[in-house]
């Protein structure tokens, strides 16, 4: 009897032990622009966010072991592709995350699909990633051009800005942003009076601003990013565009851009983001930890950093549920079947086309007098509920939705 009991106990211990020790090994690669124009919106800050996500998850699930590596794609699709190939094939990376710059992201998405691995986009904007170029291995987390266009475009038309002139960066991202915004403006009853396409990394916008001025459009839409947006806003203040009655719509403006402009120049600008560091106590506490984890002390985390954090958490949850070493498609399918829930974006879901759906926020940049502490950039004008914030998957043109 005693012997049987002992055996049973031993069996129980073994069974339990086996269950709890079922180790899940995960390798994650943060691929970003580490040293050039997008290094502040993604870059080393994304690595810090990834570290936080891994620390938070493995604290509660010690049987999940996560290894993290990072790389610099230098905004070149060929270099990004080369790193992605190397990571997936040689370094056995399961999931690549971030990848600002739509050109590089589209290339990496294709590679993830070919090799049946996982790719979570946080940094890139092109809505094509969940549109005609979608695949079953890619999840687009933080934001996209459709959401930016719809948020800012709609809001401007509703407040009387019904005629538009676009300053568009002359490459894939700018064209997508202009196309999506023009559609949103026209849908809301507005009209596009004209546009000018400027080369990427233009220093002087005064010539284009004069053209915008003589178009007499009520809104000048900036379908560009980074330094181009900063230069356009800085110089339109100088040329008195806003004082003369025209409004500026920054279609893609990050907290780091506002920081670079200074509130004096940026005040009054309307923009859409999905996450803001100073929105609530949870975000502020997270920002504090982000700074400790290696985010630059003089900077504030962007929505892209928040997206890296939340994307990794959700991916790890899916991996824990699945156990073992699943294929990329299976892992992404699991991610789509589970509702998302994280401290930064709250409850949400991932659509069939890979589009993560959450609330978006329409902000206005504060005047210097309204700003109470460093980094106090925005006041909330409206919350766009998740169901309206992102494109209906049926309209995305993604083959995954109809099949």
């Amino acid at each position: 009897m005693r012997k049987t009991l002992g055996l049973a106990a031993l069996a129980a211990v073994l069974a339990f032990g086996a269950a709890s020790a079922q180790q899940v090994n995960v390798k994650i690669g943060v691929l970003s622009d580490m040293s050039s124009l997008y290094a502040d919106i993604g870059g080393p800050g994304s690595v810090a966010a990834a570290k936080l996500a891994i620390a938070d998850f493995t604290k509660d699930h010690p049987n999940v072991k996560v290894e993290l590596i990072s790389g610099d794609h230098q905004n070149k699709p060929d270099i990004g592709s080369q790193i992605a190939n190397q990571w997936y094939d040689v370094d056995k990376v399961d999931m690549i995350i971030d990848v600002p710059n739509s050109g590089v992201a589209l290339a990496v998405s294709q590679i993830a699909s070919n090799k049946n691995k996982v790719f979570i986009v946080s940094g890139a904007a092109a809505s094509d990633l969940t549109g005609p170029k979608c695949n079953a291995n890619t999840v687009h987390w933080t934001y996209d051009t459709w959401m930016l266009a719809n948020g800012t475009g709609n809001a401007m038309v509703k407040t009387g800005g019904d005629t538009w002139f676009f300053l568009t960066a002359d490459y894939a991202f700018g064209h997508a942003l202009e196309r999506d915004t023009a559609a949103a403006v026209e849908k809301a009853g507005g009209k596009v009076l004209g546009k000018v396409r400027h080369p990427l990394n233009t220093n002087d916008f005064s010539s284009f601003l004069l053209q915008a001025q003589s178009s007499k459009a009520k809104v000048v839409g900036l379908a560009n990013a980074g330094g181009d947006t900063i230069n356009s806003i800085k110089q339109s203040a100088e040329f008195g565009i806003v004082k003369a009655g025209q409004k500026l719509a920054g279609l893609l403006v990050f907290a780091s851009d506002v920081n670079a402009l200074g509130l004096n120049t940026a005040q009054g600008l309307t923009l859409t983001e999905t996450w803001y560091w100073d929105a609530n106590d949870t975000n502020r506490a997270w920002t504090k930890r982000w700074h400790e984890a290696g985010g630059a002390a003089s900077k504030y985390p962007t929505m892209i950093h928040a997206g890296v954090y939340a994307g990794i958490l959700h991916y790890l949850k899916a991996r824990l549920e699945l156990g073992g070493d699943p294929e990329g498609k299976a892992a992404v399918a699991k991610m789509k079947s589970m509702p998302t829930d994280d401290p930064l974006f709250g409850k949400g879901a991932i659509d069939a086309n890979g589009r993560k759906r959450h609330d978006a926020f329409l902000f206005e940049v504060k005047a210097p007098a309204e700003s109470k502490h460093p980094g106090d950039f925005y006041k909330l004008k409206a919350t766009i509920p998740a169901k309206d914030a992102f494109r209906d998957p049926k309209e995305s043109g993604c083959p995954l939705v109809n099949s």
Partner: protein
Amino acid sequence: MFEIFGIPSQALFGQLLIGLINGSFYALLSLGLAVIFGMLNIINFSHGAQYMMGAFAAYLILQYFGLGYWPALIIAPIIVGITGIIIERLFLQWLYKLDHLYGLLLTFGLALIFEGVARNYFGSAGLPYTVPESLQGGQNLGFMFLPNYRAWVIAASLTVCIATWFVIERTRLGAYLRAATENPTLVRAFGINVSRMITLTYGFGVALAAFAGVMAAPIYNVSPQMGSELIIVVFAVVVIGGMGSILGAIVTGFGLGVIEGLTKVFFPEASNTVIFVIMAIVLLVRPAGLFGRRG
């Protein structure tokens, strides 16, 4: 009101003026390059980084010493000029006798280091800097709104360019300098300290870049990559004008600014390329540049 090629004349005048303003930046920067190449035979690839350092110095002077735009316009070029003098003493002076390529590679490496350091400490997004209060606002010229600051940029740039040209081409000091470039041994024989003169010339060229940087800070994004975006265009300007020709650098600087400005109206997508198309044509027709002396 009349139209030229379907563009209202008013808009065209506006664009011409804007072209001149942009041209004044090209002229200031290519002037520094031309001085350095003409006197030292060094292709100063770190010129863009030194322009960036000028803008950053203006920002730091404001942040840490509370001194605004006007003091910065004097102090920043002096500080950056001194770093130039140190670079000349430490590195460049050993390269004069070697092929141009060595100087180019050295200064290119230095530019990458300066940019990397700036990015490490200040990030890549940029730093805020506003137009000084005394130059805010603008004038309505009838055909366009001219911000006061842009008017100042044109005036300051023209003054500096003409003064530099005058000193080098028309004064005794300039004559010594030019003679020292032609035949340093002979000039030394007259008891003139040639190497000190060369060092100071490099410092001056670098200070010109920093001066342009301070001028740019209120209207362009102050970021580590601000110089590398501009330097290639400026090199094209120098090549078109004729390597080392001071007058060539000034005239082509303003001229290409105007041509680029007009391209932004008629075919904006090509506005980044037009200068290089002109460069290719000029090199085919006049390999020494428009104002260059055949060597």
